[in-house]
């Protein structure tokens, strides 16, 4: 029971991170119908920028954690968002409206490029960060097994909740959000009504990248290490989460992320960690075959 609870806590934390990345996938798919294959690598870039920001601030003498964290959060989000914007501008916008394979291949190329870009610039080895937020709350102690809820875990989950609320408010209450929803439903009509479609799409990428940056930052703090290849697997899992939750649905992405995080953690905890990636892929395949609209997505009738 205690073990279960611990895995639950760990799974929720991991799931929050996946959810943040998954939102990027789902928003982009919702608006232009393409899988941003490079999104996982944007997350990785967020992590790298975070660690560099950490070290820079450390050298500059800012060590009071809450302030430093806030600065790093802003820096990471800003720079990563810029990367996301640039990727869209260079690799996707020229291909809007061409056949379906071209943007996907361009995205794959971009993903490979980003991975190697970071690898060449920063080196292929893992980059380590000493633990920043220590300590935990002891929840219960059963037969010598202590269930711990780390302060970092609390921070991660709280941060995720705040961002979700903020994003939902943005989408439902602001003009930008309305424009985005309009573009999702009927891009031609939206542009005829005066919505700047290019800008809306760019902003979607920017938002997704910003959230991925947060995920990168907390991933770095949680695991203490970041490397140039982490985006590949995390990206696939986050995409699975987006599909599971219902591609195009924001709460679906977060729900899917949490589910995948839980499955990942429980599988490794109770079976073996060897095949946990296989478990995620299997879920992806099964969902796409049997319920392609995911848990919270809408059913799509083919109009002939």
């Amino acid at each position, binding site marked *: 029971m205690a073990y279960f609870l611990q895995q639950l806590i760990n799974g929720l934390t991991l799931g929050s991170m996946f959810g943040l990345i998954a939102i990027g996938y789902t928003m982009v798919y919702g608006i232009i119908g393409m899988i941003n294959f490079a999104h996982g690598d944007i997350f990785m870039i967020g992590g790298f920028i975070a660690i560099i920001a950490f070290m820079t601030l450390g050298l500059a003498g800012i060590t009071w954690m809450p302030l430093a964290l806030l600065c790093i959060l802003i820096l990471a989000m800003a720079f990563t968002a810029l990367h996301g914007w640039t990727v869209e501008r260079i690799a996707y916008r020229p291909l809007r409206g061409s056949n379906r*394979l071209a943007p996907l291949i361009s995205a794959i190329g971009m993903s490979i490029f980003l991975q190697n870009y*970071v690898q060449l610039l920063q080196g292929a080895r893992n980059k380590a960060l000493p633990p920043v937020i220590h300590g935990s709350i002891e929840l219960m102690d059963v037969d010598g097994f202590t269930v711990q809820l780390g302060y970092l875990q609390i921070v991660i989950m709280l941060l995720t909740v705040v961002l979700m609320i903020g994003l939902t408010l943005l989408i439902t209450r602001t003009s930008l959000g309305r424009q985005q929803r309009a573009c999702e439903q009927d891009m031609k009509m939206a542009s005829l009504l005066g919505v700047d479609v290019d800008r809306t799409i760019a902003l979607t990428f920017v938002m997704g990248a910003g959230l991925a940056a947060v995920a990168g930052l907390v991933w770095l703090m949680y695991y203490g290490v970041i490397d140039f290849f982490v985006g590949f697997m995390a990206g696939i899992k986050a*995409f699975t989460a987006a599909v599971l939750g219902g591609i195009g649905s924001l709460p679906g992405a977060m729900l899917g992320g949490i589910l995948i995080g839980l499955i990942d953690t429980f599988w490794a905890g109770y079976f073996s960690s060897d095949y946990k990636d296989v478990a995620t892929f299997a879920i992806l395949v099964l969902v796409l075959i049997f319920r392609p609209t995911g848990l919270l997505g809408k059913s799509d009738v083919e109009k002939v």
Partner: protein
Amino acid sequence: MSSTSAAPPPAVMPPATAQPRRAALALIVKDALVIGAIALALAIPLVGFKTVDRGSTTLLETRFGPMLCGVSVIALGRLAFSLINAGYTRTVFTVAATLASAWPLAVILGAAPKGWLPLAWMSWLVALSLALRAAYVVWSERAAAGGNLAPGERMAATVQRLSAFIAPVLIAFAVAMPMLPLADQRWVDLGILVLTYIMLGWGLNVVVGLAGLLDLGYVAFYAVGAYSFAIFAKTFALNFWEALPIAGLLAATFGVLLGFPVLRLRGDYLAIVTLGFGEIVRVVLLNWSDLSNGPKGIGDIPRPSFFGMPFSAAPPAGVTSFHQWFSQHLWEVSFSPIQRAIYLYYIILALALLTNWFTLRIRKLPISLAWEALREDEIACRALGINPTSTKLTAFAIGAMFGGFAGAFFATRQGFISPESFNFMESAIILAIVVLGGMGTQIGVVIAAILLIGGPEWFRDLESYRMLAFGALMVLIMIWRPRGLLAFREPTLRLKPVSAKSP
């Protein structure tokens, strides 16, 4: 932002009066400065700073010098690019071409300091691209005055039409290559490597190029072929030619099993799912030690023998080795590792040519037309009674079979296989070869494989830049020619030649 895409380049405007010209120039400079600012903002975190590992801790170094230079190169490049479009084509061409020719000399002469080498290469690339772009603009203006095809399309059409002539020449060269005086072990090995990728490219081409199914997990069939060959050959003491069909058959079966549930999915989803399958295969091979011996891999895979005669310096008693047989019947040779290499070379050449023959034949059959029709409009195909699933599965199985053959060859050539050789990067490279070469064209795959595999092997020290270049090339070629460099569709060439023209 001005044009970068596949739209035909604007015609050169005659020099207008001074005022608008100055204003236009001011705009161009402002644009370049904006680009420079964006590049700077992008570069600061990852280029300006470098994380360095010292033992188990990470330290920070700065690289502001190269960063600022790199950003300036980008801004200048943008400026020059805009100037080309604004009509200063010849000026830009002269400057860029001079720089492009000067840089490599400087590098070769060692004039560039070590840490600045990547920057030097980047600047050279920018200069070269500008020179090429300027030349292209001039050429396509001349072309626009003449024919009605964009130069990219004309080049593709020309190469395709000439392929009837190019192909025999290439084949003759390929056959003769190991016999040429220059050919040493390195060349033969390179030839084997390139031919392997050509075969893989042709195999994937059936799936992606002809049937339009984006398979990101093609390496799974390569792996199935290699491992099934290794296991069968070792367990049942089969030789290469006996185990080869088994490998192909198993791979094709695997293809059908994999394809059946997923082929109804839409393009992007299919891509991700096949990627997932590729990874599943790799992870299973890594962990199912009973079957695959895990990360240690399988070694001592039987090497091919020449009609029963092994390629070894000291064969066991009663067995004639190849060099002994050769010495008895032809002329005296001593044992050399290159003999087996040459034999392997001809095997892969034969396999590749088989793949090619198969593809060319199948393009004349109805299934190939059905693949194209499915790509264009699946709903219409269903209304015509075409079974989409079995049609797609056929493509998948054929592609998988050839991947399996290539895998078997890989196993016997290396003598040792491990799951590490079968990762997503391999799938991506093979996909890049198919895509960059021109989806659906045989000659395109050959050229792409020679450039993408052969090229970096020559420039060994640029190895780490190879994948970077792959990625960048994939993006650039998609933007310029979304259907691949040499893709050009000619119906009458491919179709039954007798069109219903009235006599």
